[in-house]
Protein backbone atom coordinates (compact mmCIF):
# COMPACT_ATOMS: atom_id res chain seq x y z
CA UNK A 1 0.00 0.00 0.00
CA UNK A 2 1.24 3.50 -0.82
CA UNK A 3 1.06 6.06 1.97
CA UNK A 4 -0.32 9.39 0.79
CA UNK A 5 -0.99 12.05 3.37
CA UNK A 6 -4.29 13.86 3.71
CA UNK A 7 -2.35 17.06 3.02
CA UNK A 8 -1.40 15.81 -0.41
CA UNK A 9 -4.78 14.30 -1.16
CA UNK A 10 -6.68 17.44 -0.15
CA UNK A 11 -4.38 19.52 -2.34
CA UNK A 12 -5.06 17.00 -5.11
CA UNK A 13 -8.83 17.18 -4.63
CA UNK A 14 -8.71 20.99 -4.44
CA UNK A 15 -6.76 21.14 -7.70
CA UNK A 16 -3.76 22.75 -6.03
CA UNK A 17 -1.11 20.37 -7.32
CA UNK A 18 1.11 20.88 -10.33
CA UNK A 19 0.20 18.87 -13.40
CA UNK A 20 2.95 16.29 -12.99
CA UNK A 21 2.11 15.85 -9.32
CA UNK A 22 -1.54 15.31 -10.21
CA UNK A 23 -0.53 12.69 -12.73
CA UNK A 24 1.60 10.94 -10.13
CA UNK A 25 -1.29 10.89 -7.66
CA UNK A 26 -3.64 9.65 -10.41
CA UNK A 27 -1.29 6.76 -11.00
CA UNK A 28 -1.26 5.83 -7.31
CA UNK A 29 -5.05 6.02 -7.15
CA UNK A 30 -5.30 3.63 -10.11
CA UNK A 31 -3.17 1.09 -8.32
CA UNK A 32 -4.20 1.43 -4.69
CA UNK A 33 -7.81 0.97 -3.64
CA UNK A 34 -7.27 2.17 -0.08
CA UNK A 35 -5.77 5.49 -1.16
CA UNK A 36 -8.40 5.80 -3.88
CA UNK A 37 -11.18 5.38 -1.31
CA UNK A 38 -9.60 8.01 0.92
CA UNK A 39 -9.31 10.43 -2.01
CA UNK A 40 -12.92 9.72 -2.91
CA UNK A 41 -14.01 10.47 0.67
CA UNK A 42 -12.08 13.75 0.65
CA UNK A 43 -13.58 14.63 -2.72
CA UNK A 44 -17.01 13.94 -1.29
CA UNK A 45 -16.27 16.15 1.71
CA UNK A 46 -15.07 18.93 -0.60
CA UNK A 47 -18.17 18.65 -2.74
CA UNK A 48 -20.47 18.65 0.30
CA UNK A 49 -18.86 21.85 1.55
CA UNK A 50 -19.33 23.50 -1.82
CA UNK A 51 -22.99 22.43 -1.95
CA UNK A 52 -23.58 23.66 1.60
CA UNK A 53 -22.19 27.11 0.84
CA UNK A 54 -24.11 27.28 -2.41
CA UNK A 55 -27.27 26.51 -0.44
CA UNK A 56 -26.46 29.27 2.03
CA UNK A 57 -25.88 31.80 -0.74
CA UNK A 58 -29.07 30.68 -2.50
CA UNK A 59 -30.87 31.19 0.80
CA UNK A 60 -29.52 34.72 1.15
CA UNK A 61 -30.54 35.59 -2.40
CA UNK A 62 -33.99 34.06 -2.11
CA UNK A 63 -34.57 35.81 1.22
CA UNK A 64 -33.61 39.15 -0.28
CA UNK A 65 -35.77 38.54 -3.34
CA UNK A 66 -38.74 37.67 -1.13
CA UNK A 67 -38.41 40.98 0.62
CA UNK A 68 -38.92 42.92 -2.60
CA UNK A 69 -42.74 43.12 -2.46
CA UNK A 70 -42.53 44.93 0.86
CA UNK A 71 -40.76 47.82 -0.80
CA UNK A 72 -42.29 51.26 -0.76
CA UNK A 73 -44.25 52.21 -3.88
CA UNK A 74 -41.93 52.79 -6.79
CA UNK A 75 -41.13 56.32 -7.88
CA UNK A 76 -40.86 56.95 -11.56
CA UNK A 77 -37.31 57.54 -12.56
CA UNK A 78 -35.81 59.28 -15.51
CA UNK A 79 -34.78 56.69 -18.03
CA UNK A 80 -32.62 57.15 -21.01
CA UNK A 81 -33.31 55.51 -24.29
CA UNK A 82 -30.00 53.80 -24.26
CA UNK A 83 -29.18 50.28 -23.39
CA UNK A 84 -32.82 49.54 -22.76
CA UNK A 85 -32.97 49.31 -26.53
CA UNK A 86 -31.26 46.02 -26.47
CA UNK A 87 -33.98 44.75 -24.24
CA UNK A 88 -32.15 44.10 -21.04
CA UNK A 89 -33.62 46.71 -18.74
CA UNK A 90 -37.18 46.27 -17.58
CA UNK A 91 -39.15 44.39 -15.00
CA UNK A 92 -37.68 43.31 -11.75
CA UNK A 93 -35.19 46.13 -11.83
CA UNK A 94 -32.90 45.93 -8.92
CA UNK A 95 -34.92 43.19 -7.24
CA UNK A 96 -31.72 42.21 -5.62
CA UNK A 97 -30.65 45.75 -4.84
CA UNK A 98 -33.96 46.88 -3.50
CA UNK A 99 -34.66 43.74 -1.61
CA UNK A 100 -31.30 44.07 -0.01
CA UNK A 101 -32.00 47.50 1.20
CA UNK A 102 -35.71 47.14 1.83
CA UNK A 103 -35.59 44.72 4.69
CA UNK A 104 -32.64 46.29 6.41
CA UNK A 105 -32.80 50.01 6.40
CA UNK A 106 -29.06 50.04 6.20
CA UNK A 107 -26.94 52.94 5.15
CA UNK A 108 -26.97 51.43 1.71
CA UNK A 109 -30.29 53.04 0.82
CA UNK A 110 -30.27 54.10 -2.78
CA UNK A 111 -30.69 57.59 -4.02
CA UNK A 112 -34.07 58.61 -5.39
CA UNK A 113 -33.04 58.36 -9.00
CA UNK A 114 -32.50 54.64 -8.65
CA UNK A 115 -36.00 53.36 -8.12
CA UNK A 116 -38.30 50.77 -9.57
CA UNK A 117 -39.84 51.46 -12.95
CA UNK A 118 -43.61 51.52 -12.98
CA UNK A 119 -45.65 48.76 -14.55
CA UNK A 120 -46.60 50.76 -17.65
CA UNK A 121 -43.06 51.74 -18.22
CA UNK A 122 -42.02 48.13 -18.05
CA UNK A 123 -44.63 46.83 -20.46
CA UNK A 124 -43.89 49.57 -22.96
CA UNK A 125 -40.40 48.21 -23.30
CA UNK A 126 -41.71 44.89 -24.60
CA UNK A 127 -42.51 45.06 -28.30
CA UNK A 128 -42.97 42.79 -31.31
CA UNK A 129 -40.00 41.06 -32.84
CA UNK A 130 -40.01 43.73 -35.51
CA UNK A 131 -39.69 46.43 -32.87
CA UNK A 132 -36.87 44.55 -31.21
CA UNK A 133 -35.12 44.02 -34.56
CA UNK A 134 -35.37 47.71 -35.40
CA UNK A 135 -33.96 48.59 -32.00
CA UNK A 136 -31.11 46.15 -32.49
CA UNK A 137 -30.50 47.56 -36.00
CA UNK A 138 -30.23 51.05 -34.57
CA UNK A 139 -27.18 49.92 -32.65
CA UNK A 140 -25.26 48.82 -35.74
CA UNK A 141 -22.70 51.08 -37.34
CA UNK A 142 -20.17 50.86 -40.15
CA UNK A 143 -17.56 49.87 -37.60
CA UNK A 144 -19.70 46.87 -36.66
CA UNK A 145 -19.24 45.26 -40.05
CA UNK A 146 -16.14 46.89 -41.53
CA UNK A 147 -13.77 45.09 -39.18
CA UNK A 148 -13.10 41.54 -40.37
CA UNK A 149 -14.65 38.77 -38.32
CA UNK A 150 -11.21 37.24 -37.64
CA UNK A 151 -10.00 40.52 -36.16
CA UNK A 152 -13.08 40.74 -33.97
CA UNK A 153 -12.05 37.46 -32.39
CA UNK A 154 -8.50 38.62 -31.63
CA UNK A 155 -8.50 39.54 -27.96
CA UNK A 156 -5.45 41.81 -28.11
CA UNK A 157 -6.61 43.63 -31.24
CA UNK A 158 -10.04 44.15 -29.74
CA UNK A 159 -8.51 45.46 -26.50
CA UNK A 160 -6.42 47.92 -28.50
CA UNK A 161 -9.34 49.08 -30.63
CA UNK A 162 -11.68 49.48 -27.67
CA UNK A 163 -9.08 51.38 -25.66
CA UNK A 164 -8.67 53.80 -28.57
CA UNK A 165 -12.37 54.31 -29.18
CA UNK A 166 -13.94 54.06 -25.72
CA UNK A 167 -10.94 55.23 -23.71
CA UNK A 168 -7.77 53.80 -22.16
CA UNK A 169 -9.58 52.98 -18.90
CA UNK A 170 -11.98 50.56 -20.57
CA UNK A 171 -11.93 47.02 -19.16
CA UNK A 172 -11.65 44.14 -21.60
CA UNK A 173 -11.86 41.23 -19.19
CA UNK A 174 -10.56 37.73 -19.63
CA UNK A 175 -13.29 35.54 -18.13
CA UNK A 176 -11.85 32.13 -19.03
CA UNK A 177 -11.24 31.29 -15.39
CA UNK A 178 -14.92 31.99 -14.75
CA UNK A 179 -15.93 29.63 -17.56
CA UNK A 180 -16.62 32.19 -20.28
CA UNK A 181 -14.52 32.17 -23.43
CA UNK A 182 -14.01 35.43 -25.30
CA UNK A 183 -15.56 35.05 -28.76
CA UNK A 184 -15.46 38.49 -30.32
CA UNK A 185 -15.74 42.20 -29.77
CA UNK A 186 -17.38 44.77 -31.99
CA UNK A 187 -18.31 48.41 -32.04
CA UNK A 188 -21.95 49.41 -32.11
CA UNK A 189 -23.26 52.94 -31.75
CA UNK A 190 -25.80 54.71 -29.65
CA UNK A 191 -26.84 58.31 -30.33
CA UNK A 192 -23.82 58.68 -32.55
CA UNK A 193 -21.45 57.56 -29.80
CA UNK A 194 -19.50 54.29 -29.97
CA UNK A 195 -20.76 51.42 -27.88
CA UNK A 196 -18.45 48.45 -27.35
CA UNK A 197 -19.88 44.96 -27.27
CA UNK A 198 -17.78 42.02 -26.08
CA UNK A 199 -19.25 38.57 -26.47
CA UNK A 200 -18.36 35.49 -24.42
CA UNK A 201 -19.61 31.93 -24.49
CA UNK A 202 -20.01 29.84 -21.38
CA UNK A 203 -21.82 26.59 -20.73
CA UNK A 204 -25.27 27.98 -21.57
CA UNK A 205 -26.83 28.46 -24.97
CA UNK A 206 -26.92 32.26 -24.94
CA UNK A 207 -23.79 34.40 -25.02
CA UNK A 208 -22.75 36.69 -22.22
CA UNK A 209 -22.24 40.28 -23.37
CA UNK A 210 -20.35 43.16 -21.85
CA UNK A 211 -21.22 46.62 -23.17
CA UNK A 212 -19.12 49.69 -22.51
CA UNK A 213 -19.75 53.31 -23.39
CA UNK A 214 -18.01 56.58 -22.58
CA UNK A 215 -19.58 58.57 -19.76
CA UNK A 216 -21.21 57.77 -16.45
CA UNK A 217 -24.73 56.39 -16.71
CA UNK A 218 -26.61 58.02 -13.88
CA UNK A 219 -29.96 56.57 -14.81
CA UNK A 220 -28.98 53.00 -14.30
CA UNK A 221 -26.95 51.14 -11.73
CA UNK A 222 -27.35 47.64 -10.31
CA UNK A 223 -29.11 44.45 -11.27
CA UNK A 224 -32.14 44.13 -13.52
CA UNK A 225 -33.97 41.28 -15.20
CA UNK A 226 -36.04 41.14 -18.35
CA UNK A 227 -37.48 37.75 -19.19
CA UNK A 228 -34.59 35.33 -19.24
CA UNK A 229 -31.97 38.06 -19.52
CA UNK A 230 -30.39 39.50 -16.44
CA UNK A 231 -28.06 42.48 -16.43
CA UNK A 232 -25.82 44.43 -14.13
CA UNK A 233 -24.92 48.05 -14.81
CA UNK A 234 -22.26 50.20 -13.23
CA UNK A 235 -19.90 53.06 -14.04
CA UNK A 236 -16.19 53.18 -13.47
CA UNK A 237 -13.50 55.69 -14.44
CA UNK A 238 -15.83 57.62 -16.72
CA UNK A 239 -17.09 54.55 -18.55
CA UNK A 240 -20.57 53.02 -18.19
CA UNK A 241 -20.79 49.23 -18.33
CA UNK A 242 -23.59 46.76 -18.76
CA UNK A 243 -23.11 43.02 -18.34
CA UNK A 244 -26.00 41.01 -19.76
CA UNK A 245 -26.78 37.33 -20.13
CA UNK A 246 -29.04 34.51 -19.11
CA UNK A 247 -26.98 33.70 -16.06
CA UNK A 248 -28.55 34.02 -12.60
CA UNK A 249 -28.22 37.15 -10.51
CA UNK A 250 -25.44 35.87 -8.28
CA UNK A 251 -23.31 34.80 -11.23
CA UNK A 252 -23.78 38.13 -12.99
CA UNK A 253 -22.99 40.10 -9.84
CA UNK A 254 -19.87 38.06 -9.26
CA UNK A 255 -18.72 38.52 -12.84
CA UNK A 256 -19.40 42.25 -12.62
CA UNK A 257 -17.39 42.43 -9.43
CA UNK A 258 -14.53 40.61 -11.12
CA UNK A 259 -14.64 42.97 -14.10
CA UNK A 260 -14.64 46.00 -11.84
CA UNK A 261 -11.27 44.92 -10.53
CA UNK A 262 -9.75 44.15 -13.91
CA UNK A 263 -6.92 46.41 -15.03
CA UNK A 264 -7.72 48.72 -17.95
CA UNK A 265 -7.27 47.45 -21.50
CA UNK A 266 -4.57 50.04 -22.09
CA UNK A 267 -2.20 48.34 -19.64
CA UNK A 268 0.43 46.08 -21.16
CA UNK A 269 -0.82 42.57 -21.91
CA UNK A 270 1.69 40.97 -19.53
CA UNK A 271 0.43 43.02 -16.56
CA UNK A 272 -3.15 42.26 -17.43
CA UNK A 273 -2.54 38.52 -17.62
CA UNK A 274 -0.74 38.56 -14.30
CA UNK A 275 -3.47 40.52 -12.67
CA UNK A 276 -6.14 38.29 -14.15
CA UNK A 277 -4.49 35.30 -12.51
Amino acid at each position, binding site marked *: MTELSDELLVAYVDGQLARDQTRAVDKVLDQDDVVARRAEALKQAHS*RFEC*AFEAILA*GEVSELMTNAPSLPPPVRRRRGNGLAKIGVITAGLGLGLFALVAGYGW*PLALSERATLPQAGEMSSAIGTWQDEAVRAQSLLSRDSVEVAAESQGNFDLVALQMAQVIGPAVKIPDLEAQGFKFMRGQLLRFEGEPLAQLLYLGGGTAPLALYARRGEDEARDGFAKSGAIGS*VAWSDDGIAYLLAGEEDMVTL*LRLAEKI*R*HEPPAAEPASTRKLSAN
Partner: protein
Amino acid sequence: MQAETQHESVRHGLIAMLPRLKGFADVLVGDKRQGRALLRRALKRMLADQHRYQRGTPLDRFAFAEIYRLWLGQLRDHADPLRQAKPSGADFERLLRRGGAPDFDAETASFLGALPPQQRSTLLLVYGEGFAHEDAGLVLDTGPDTIQARLIRACASLADRLGVSSPAPASATVEALYPREATEGP
Protein backbone atom coordinates in the same frame (compact mmCIF):
# COMPACT_ATOMS: atom_id res chain seq x y z
CA MET B 1 -15.58 65.14 -5.97
CA GLN B 2 -13.18 62.25 -6.32
CA ALA B 3 -13.95 61.11 -2.79
CA GLU B 4 -17.65 61.31 -3.52
CA THR B 5 -17.22 59.15 -6.60
CA GLN B 6 -15.26 56.61 -4.66
CA HIS B 7 -17.87 56.58 -1.92
CA GLU B 8 -20.57 55.88 -4.49
CA SER B 9 -18.51 53.16 -6.03
CA VAL B 10 -17.89 51.51 -2.64
CA ARG B 11 -21.54 51.79 -1.70
CA HIS B 12 -22.76 50.29 -4.96
CA GLY B 13 -20.13 47.61 -4.79
CA LEU B 14 -21.29 46.68 -1.31
CA ILE B 15 -24.91 46.56 -2.43
CA ALA B 16 -24.03 44.27 -5.30
CA MET B 17 -22.21 41.97 -2.90
CA LEU B 18 -24.79 41.99 -0.16
CA PRO B 19 -25.95 38.36 -0.47
CA ARG B 20 -22.33 37.24 -0.25
CA LEU B 21 -21.53 39.52 2.66
CA LYS B 22 -24.61 38.38 4.50
CA GLY B 23 -23.70 34.75 3.87
CA PHE B 24 -20.23 35.37 5.25
CA ALA B 25 -21.49 37.13 8.37
CA ASP B 26 -24.08 34.41 8.98
CA VAL B 27 -21.56 31.62 8.57
CA LEU B 28 -19.00 33.39 10.73
CA VAL B 29 -21.43 33.94 13.58
CA GLY B 30 -23.37 30.73 12.95
CA ASP B 31 -26.72 32.39 13.41
CA LYS B 32 -28.91 34.44 11.11
CA ARG B 33 -30.03 37.11 13.57
CA GLN B 34 -26.61 37.80 14.96
CA GLY B 35 -25.10 37.64 11.49
CA ARG B 36 -27.44 40.34 10.35
CA ALA B 37 -26.54 42.53 13.31
CA LEU B 38 -22.84 42.03 12.64
CA LEU B 39 -23.23 42.87 8.97
CA ARG B 40 -25.22 46.00 9.75
CA ARG B 41 -22.50 47.29 12.05
CA ALA B 42 -19.79 46.37 9.56
CA LEU B 43 -21.56 48.16 6.71
CA LYS B 44 -22.01 51.29 8.79
CA ARG B 45 -18.35 51.25 9.65
CA MET B 46 -17.25 50.61 6.08
CA LEU B 47 -19.27 53.53 4.80
CA ALA B 48 -18.28 55.85 7.61
CA ASP B 49 -14.59 55.04 7.10
CA GLN B 50 -14.73 54.38 3.39
CA HIS B 51 -11.53 56.38 2.91
CA ARG B 52 -9.75 53.32 4.27
CA TYR B 53 -10.68 51.40 1.16
CA GLN B 54 -7.83 51.63 -1.30
CA ARG B 55 -8.59 51.54 -4.99
CA GLY B 56 -7.18 48.43 -6.55
CA THR B 57 -7.94 46.26 -3.54
CA PRO B 58 -10.65 43.76 -4.42
CA LEU B 59 -13.74 45.15 -2.73
CA ASP B 60 -14.94 41.74 -1.65
CA ARG B 61 -11.67 41.03 0.12
CA PHE B 62 -11.83 44.40 1.83
CA ALA B 63 -15.45 43.92 2.91
CA PHE B 64 -15.03 40.36 4.16
CA ALA B 65 -11.94 41.44 6.11
CA GLU B 66 -13.87 44.33 7.68
CA ILE B 67 -16.62 42.00 8.83
CA TYR B 68 -14.09 39.57 10.24
CA ARG B 69 -12.14 42.32 12.01
CA LEU B 70 -15.29 43.68 13.57
CA TRP B 71 -16.33 40.23 14.76
CA LEU B 72 -12.89 39.58 16.23
CA GLY B 73 -12.84 43.00 17.87
CA GLN B 74 -16.17 42.31 19.52
CA LEU B 75 -14.92 38.98 20.74
CA ARG B 76 -11.82 40.55 22.22
CA ASP B 77 -13.84 43.33 23.83
CA HIS B 78 -16.21 40.90 25.46
CA ALA B 79 -15.88 40.97 29.22
CA ASP B 80 -15.86 37.20 29.39
CA PRO B 81 -15.46 35.68 25.92
CA LEU B 82 -15.48 32.15 27.29
CA ARG B 83 -19.04 32.63 28.51
CA GLN B 84 -20.33 33.98 25.24
CA ALA B 85 -23.46 32.23 24.01
CA LYS B 86 -22.68 29.66 21.36
CA PRO B 87 -25.12 29.34 18.49
CA SER B 88 -26.85 25.99 18.42
CA GLY B 89 -26.52 23.46 15.61
CA ALA B 90 -30.17 24.13 14.79
CA ASP B 91 -29.37 27.81 14.14
CA PHE B 92 -26.79 26.83 11.60
CA GLU B 93 -29.00 24.23 9.95
CA ARG B 94 -31.58 26.92 9.38
CA LEU B 95 -29.04 28.83 7.30
CA LEU B 96 -28.80 25.91 4.90
CA ARG B 97 -32.48 25.08 4.84
CA ARG B 98 -33.47 28.56 3.67
CA GLY B 99 -32.10 27.89 0.20
CA GLY B 100 -34.95 25.46 -0.30
CA ALA B 101 -32.59 22.87 -1.73
CA PRO B 102 -34.48 19.59 -1.94
CA ASP B 103 -31.46 17.57 -0.86
CA PHE B 104 -30.71 19.20 2.47
CA ASP B 105 -27.49 17.72 3.84
CA ALA B 106 -28.06 17.48 7.57
CA GLU B 107 -24.75 15.78 8.23
CA THR B 108 -22.66 18.51 6.62
CA ALA B 109 -24.79 21.19 8.26
CA SER B 110 -24.25 19.70 11.68
CA PHE B 111 -20.54 19.27 10.99
CA LEU B 112 -20.15 22.89 9.89
CA GLY B 113 -22.20 24.11 12.81
CA ALA B 114 -19.80 22.41 15.21
CA LEU B 115 -16.69 23.96 13.70
CA PRO B 116 -15.00 27.03 15.16
CA PRO B 117 -16.03 30.24 13.34
CA GLN B 118 -12.57 30.80 11.88
CA GLN B 119 -12.50 27.37 10.33
CA ARG B 120 -16.03 27.70 9.01
CA SER B 121 -15.19 31.06 7.45
CA THR B 122 -12.09 29.58 5.87
CA LEU B 123 -14.17 26.89 4.21
CA LEU B 124 -16.68 29.46 3.01
CA LEU B 125 -14.03 31.73 1.54
CA VAL B 126 -12.16 28.99 -0.30
CA TYR B 127 -14.88 26.48 -1.23
CA GLY B 128 -17.84 28.82 -1.31
CA GLU B 129 -16.29 32.03 -2.63
CA GLY B 130 -13.39 30.56 -4.58
CA PHE B 131 -10.76 32.74 -2.86
CA ALA B 132 -7.12 31.82 -3.30
CA HIS B 133 -5.47 30.74 -0.06
CA GLU B 134 -3.46 33.97 0.05
CA ASP B 135 -6.58 36.12 -0.26
CA ALA B 136 -8.49 34.07 2.30
CA GLY B 137 -5.49 34.51 4.60
CA LEU B 138 -5.61 38.28 4.12
CA VAL B 139 -9.29 38.33 5.04
CA LEU B 140 -8.82 36.20 8.13
CA ASP B 141 -5.56 37.81 9.15
CA THR B 142 -3.54 34.66 8.88
CA GLY B 143 -1.14 32.99 6.47
CA PRO B 144 -1.90 30.74 3.50
CA ASP B 145 -0.36 27.79 5.36
CA THR B 146 -2.92 28.14 8.13
CA ILE B 147 -5.67 28.35 5.56
CA GLN B 148 -4.39 25.18 3.94
CA ALA B 149 -4.13 23.45 7.31
CA ARG B 150 -7.70 24.38 8.20
CA LEU B 151 -8.99 23.02 4.91
CA ILE B 152 -7.12 19.76 5.36
CA ARG B 153 -8.40 19.30 8.90
CA ALA B 154 -11.97 20.04 7.93
CA CYS B 155 -11.96 17.84 4.82
CA ALA B 156 -10.25 14.97 6.60
CA SER B 157 -12.61 15.30 9.51
CA LEU B 158 -15.74 15.26 7.38
CA ALA B 159 -14.36 12.42 5.26
CA ASP B 160 -13.81 10.44 8.45
CA ARG B 161 -17.26 11.23 9.63
CA LEU B 162 -18.75 10.06 6.36
CA GLY B 163 -17.43 6.71 7.42
CA VAL B 164 -15.47 5.84 4.36
CA SER B 165 -12.18 5.65 6.14
CA SER B 166 -10.63 5.53 9.55
CA PRO B 167 -12.45 6.34 12.85
CA ALA B 168 -13.74 9.88 13.07
CA PRO B 169 -12.55 12.60 15.40
CA ALA B 170 -15.47 14.37 17.07
CA SER B 171 -14.89 17.49 15.04
CA ALA B 172 -12.07 19.39 13.48
CA THR B 173 -9.45 20.70 15.82
CA VAL B 174 -10.48 23.84 17.64
CA GLU B 175 -8.10 26.61 16.86
CA ALA B 176 -6.86 29.22 19.24
CA LEU B 177 -7.89 32.79 18.60
CA TYR B 178 -4.43 34.10 19.10
CA PRO B 179 -2.42 35.44 16.17
CA ARG B 180 -0.29 32.95 14.32
CA GLU B 181 2.98 34.41 15.56
CA ALA B 182 1.98 33.86 19.16
CA THR B 183 1.23 30.19 18.61
CA GLU B 184 4.33 29.36 16.61
CA GLY B 185 7.47 28.61 18.48
CA PRO B 186 10.86 29.94 17.44
